């Protein structure tokens, strides 16, 4: 019985992280139709940037953000070449050049001089957030109108490139970061660390936040409208490119948050994120890529199944987690709508 409780606790902690990633995936898919394979890279970038900063060094991701900003600026200039005016130029310059440059400057000046966890977290999130933003601008915005398949393959390309950069920046060695809090308290027989409480709290807060954002704010509704019909959204004055950028910004920040939450408990390598992200996928698929609450519940299920199978059949842990999807797919097949038309 105690073992069961331990396993369940473990599963819920993991599941909370998968829930966050699943939510980000649903969010990005719903707005841009991109199936975000590089979500896992946002996790590792967030975690390892935080760990690198904590050890007093300047992470390579800050420089990557600057480089991507320059490319994004070039694309903005090219796209707007027929109607270049000062306001457009100024805005593009501020977002694409000044912002990442300022973050890099701040990172370089602060690295190694202070050890405030909050500052390191803020820096990590802004670095990964800008990378996410520019990733959409560079890789997806020019092909935003194409089919889900083309977007998916581009997404795989981004995953490969980002994972390769991850190896360059962080090396093949695994890293851990400092915990957010050292507090521990016991509810017999379970032992709760401050870290796991933080995981639960952040997950719940983000889920509630997303729900409020999409349900009750104009920007949230505009994002949903973009998902349903890009042309229609443009006709009523929604800037669809901006919607995509916001979605990627949110997803990358959520990914980085998850990374920062887990890096104190598990050692992360440059390529760990892919597998973690895929488990978020399993949850997102169970949730049908549309429902936030269903995805969150599914993620907890995935986490628990993983915890139990790593205890009872550790060899087949991954097999079990990934085949979990088959019965779900079967159910979805049976319930699939009869009329499916012209998707490309």
């Amino acid at each position, binding site marked *: 019985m105690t073992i069961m409780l331990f396993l369940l606790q473990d599963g819920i902690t993991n599941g909370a992280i998968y829930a966050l990633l699943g939510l980000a995936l649903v969010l990005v*898919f719903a707005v841009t*139709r991109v*199936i975000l394979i590089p979500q896992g890279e946002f996790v590792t970038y967030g975690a390892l940037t935080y760990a690198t900063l904590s050890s007093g060094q300047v992470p390579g991701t800050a420089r990557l953000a600057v480089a991507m900003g320059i490319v994004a600026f070039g694309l903005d200039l090219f796209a707007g070449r027929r109607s270049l005016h000062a306001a457009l130029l100024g805005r593009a310059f501020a977002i694409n050049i000044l912002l990442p440059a300022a973050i890099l400057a701040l990172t370089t000046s602060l690295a190694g001089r202070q050890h405030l966890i909050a500052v390191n977290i803020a820096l990590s999130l802004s670095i990964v957030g800008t990378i996410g933003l520019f990733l959409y601008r*560079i*890789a997806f915005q*020019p*092909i935003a109108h*194409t089919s*889900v*398949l*083309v977007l*998916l*393959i*581009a997404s*795989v*390309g*981004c*995953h*490969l*490139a*980002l*994972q*390769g*950069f991850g*190896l*360059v920046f962080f090396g093949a060695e695994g890293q851990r970061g400092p915990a957010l809090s050292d507090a521990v308290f016991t509810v017999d027989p379970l032992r709760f660390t401050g870290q796991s409480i933080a995981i639960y709290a952040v997950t719940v807060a983000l889920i509630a936040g997303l729900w409020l954002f999409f349900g009750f704010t104009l920007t949230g509704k505009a994002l949903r409208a973009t998902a349903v019909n890009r042309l229609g959204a443009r006709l009523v004055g929604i800037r669809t490119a901006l919607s995509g950028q916001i979605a990627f910004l949110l997803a990358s920040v959520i990914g980085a948050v998850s990374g920062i939450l887990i890096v104190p408990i598990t050692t992360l390598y440059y390529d760990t994120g892919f597998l973690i992200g*895929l488990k978020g*996928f*399993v949850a997102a*698929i169970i949730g049908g*890529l549309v429902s936030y609450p269903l995805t969150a519940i599914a993620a907890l299920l995935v986490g628990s199944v993983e915890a139990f199978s790593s205890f009872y059949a550790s*060899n*087949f842990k*991954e*097999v079990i*987690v*990934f*085949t979990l*999807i*088959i019965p779900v*797919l*079967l159910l*979805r*097949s049976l319930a*699939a*709508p009869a*009329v*499916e*038309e*012209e*998707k*490309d």
Partner: protein
Amino acid sequence: MIAMAQRLPIIGFALVMAAIPFIPGMPPFWIVLLDNIGLSALVAMGLVLLTGVGGLTSFGQAAFCGFGAYTTAVLTTTYGLSPWLTLPLSLLVSGIAAVALGLVTVRLSGHYLPLGTIAWGLGLFYLFSKLEFLGRNDGISGIPPLAIGGLRMIDPGSIYFAIWIAVVLCALLTMNLLDSRTGRAIRALRRGHVAAEAFGIQTPRAKLLVFIYAAVLAGLSGWLYAHFQRAANPTPFGAQAGIEYLFIAVVGGAGYVWGGVLGAAIVVILKEILQSYLPLVFHGEGQLETIVFGILLVALLQLAPTGVWPWLTAHIPFRLNRKRPDTSLALPPRARAALTPDVLLQVDHARKQFGGVIAVNDVSFDVQAREIVALIGPNGAGKSTTFNLITGVLTSSGGTISVLGRKIGNATPQQVVKLGISRTFQHVKLVPDMTVLENVAIGAHLRGQAGALASMFRLDRADEAKLLAEAARQIERVGLTAHIDALAGSLALGQQRIVEIARALCVDPMLLLLDEPAAGLRHLEKQQLANLLRQLRDGGMSVLLVEHDMGFVMDLADRIVVLDFGTKIAEGTPEAIKANPDVIRAYLGAVA
């Protein structure tokens, strides 16, 4: 349709490939590269059919290579079977795995499918690396080489022939398959189910077929790989490899068989170059080739989303002439019940509710033999929904629909078309990248018999010639012979509607359902259409049409049924309808 002249490039290609190893001073390294290209090309070819043509994206093909490779690895090492004996078994195992996974996966819509394939691809990869009898992470080594008599294919130069013979043969079989009755059914899949099913194509079965076909090609590649490497371990069958195969297909051109081969060449060579030169330039830091690879891929999708092959063929100056079908070949008429009752179609209190909206509210009417009935009404009156109820696209919420006095209940579209009811669509549903002839031939799908295997081995030619002859005759009948080889997507919208009529006529129907056939036609074309429909009626066919052009309807129809907000408000001859106050009110408002 592929005449000998069109086979010539393939024969030329085969000869060039056969000559390459005999070039003096050919570095063995290049032969290994070509071996790898051939192995990838086989998998990519399956993906072309599955993804590019059939519209089913799979990231899991590498797992099927694994089934092929491990089957032969276990059977040849543990049980000492001959590799030639394990070939059919390897293909069989891949095929059976595909049936099991396919039954679950192919029914999924759009993006669930690729995600599902990533998931089971990973699951199978971990399974391969954990199972004791597959040697876990170390895999199985000491697999015997392929041997013919005394010739043991140990070096890359000799298995080269086995690999490339397989590639060329599979390319031929695949092209044969695509250019056939089954091939047209597969090519229609990507544009959705409704049109294909309206002509009797069992779409789930067609999808499962391509899924199995792609898996068997991957299994063949795996079998060759195992005997080429003489070892099998889980790494080349993981998610990364599955992703790479899809790349290959997309880079080369996912819609084209030779795009798969070209893509394999581009990707394999590119990877080789990147792996050997990048470390020199950047002093060996990390996996630079993956970075460049990823970036190139994204760039390629932005610049040439359809791949390299179509871009290449667009620059070839000459075009092969297509052979015209011999229209003297006759297809036997569809077996039809004797028209004993005069009522062909009886719609009795048909009802369709979408949640709280009643789209069709207890509508009753009938269509007699040799009669043109028009269904009219303002927008949103429920006309197209009525069509969808009759043809089985939607299941009715109540009422009965009978054909020749027999209730058809909730028949599937495929069953309805078998009864001799064919239709056109309000929003044209043709396959835009197929020719007019091929599109129209889909209409004759149920009147042919040839299956996938017969098509691959060209045993379907007699059957196929008759189908194409019938299609050509119907195209002539509607007056589009000038456009017979044009791509359907290149025609004007009005002409596309006429192509749909020709396709529906290929069914040899007793009742033709036309949804706004005259929309987008010019005055003269409308007159031609009206003449054609009168001819069809005089030849014994009945027509039920939805149309907004009142002049056209009043001039043509024998009887008119008027719907408004889902309810029938009037029925009668054109003269009676013109004078009916309810109809005038529905169209023009109360005061008129």
